């Protein structure tokens, strides 16, 4: 039972990763790519971590996995903001 749930979560995670990467390649400009990548990537990683957490041996590992997801979430949100702001700044300069 746990195996089935974990497999579903992990496969869903990879699906979102690939969706985000395809969006990175196919979307027309930086801002739309930022949207696609940041949201899809973090969701994919979250599903992946949820699937792996079901298989962990102890609570400490689960807490570490959760910390990884939170760190990536906060870091990508900040990075997306900073990258977009930098691109905006360069647009108004030139």
């Amino acid at each position, binding site marked *: 039972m746990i195996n089935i749930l974990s497999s579903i979560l992990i496969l869903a995670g990879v699906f979102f990763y690939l969706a985000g990467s395809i969006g990175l390649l196919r979307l027309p400009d930086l801002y739309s790519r930022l949207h696609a990548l940041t949201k899809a990537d973090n969701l994919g990683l979250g599903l992946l971590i949820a699937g792996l957490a079901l298989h962990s041996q102890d609570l400490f590992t689960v807490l570490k996995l959760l*910390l990884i997801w939170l*760190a990536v979430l*906060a*870091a990508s949100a*900040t990075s997306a*903001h*900073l990258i977009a*702001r930098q691109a905006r700044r360069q647009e108004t300069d030139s």
Partner: protein
Amino acid sequence: MKTMTLHVFDGLLLLSIVALAWASLATTDVRRSVILFMAFGLVLAVAWGRLLAPDVALAEAAIGAGLSGALLLAAVHRQPRPLSPVSSNDSRHQGPNGLSIVVRWAVTLLSAALAGTLAWALLHAFSSTPHNMLPQAISGNLAASGVSNPVTAVLLNFRAYDTLLELAVLLTAVLGIFSLGQATPGYQPAGPVFDGLVHWLVPVLILMAGYLLWVGAHAPGGAFQAGAALAAAGVVLRLAGRSRIGLPDGSALRIVMAAGVGVFLLVGLSLLLLGRPFLGYPPAWAGALILLIETAAMLSIAATLLLAFLGGQPESTGVKAAAKQQREEISL
């Protein structure tokens, strides 16, 4: 099925590494090549993990993916823009002259010699019969080494002298950085979004450094990785435009810089005085001594890497600070 998939995984990872390395060297734009180099470091960290070398993967993640990227980007930003690869008005670029041709040939021959030596060593390793004398020697003596992580045992006990010399090399490097003069002017104060990131990222990085230092005794980790994580915390504070980035002021900074080598030497010489060989820990004390040395080494390594990012003496220790103090004393 699993091994075949893993082989394909390995092949694609290898392809990405080679492609990134090639692209990083082949582009003419310096900023682009730095970004490609950062990506190279990221993929390399995964490759080390795949090769079952978590200690190296930790170091690569902290330094190759994080710190060296920030360091190179800071250096590139300081160059005047725009960067043109070839400037036709520049009198220096009048076609390759004799000296540059000689230099190019010398570098090519040296690189070819290095590649040939590595290829020969690799072929030799593959063709000789496998033996496990070294792993057996390590696992045989692990119980008396004071730690249960074989990498830490080798670095801090069996080959402690080599690590002492490595820390001395780092100390020499930071002396070289100090000789560059004042550190570069800092960064603009961060906006609210970046500030929010700093508020939680720096404490977590410091905790991570402490965790890596502690866990290094029985799992992958250790002083070097912990020092790199600590330096990353200081780099984040610096990028956010803070004036206090964790480096102590004045003479305390010099003590921290020398702490790694200093504590190592103190331990070694004390053991000599007690009649034991230099850095020959008594097995009962080995664990505690290793932790002591690793703590001092972590602080030194963190200070060294952070000072490398600063690019010179920090404002509180340098010539400008002394001059400012003199002016204040005169005006009083």
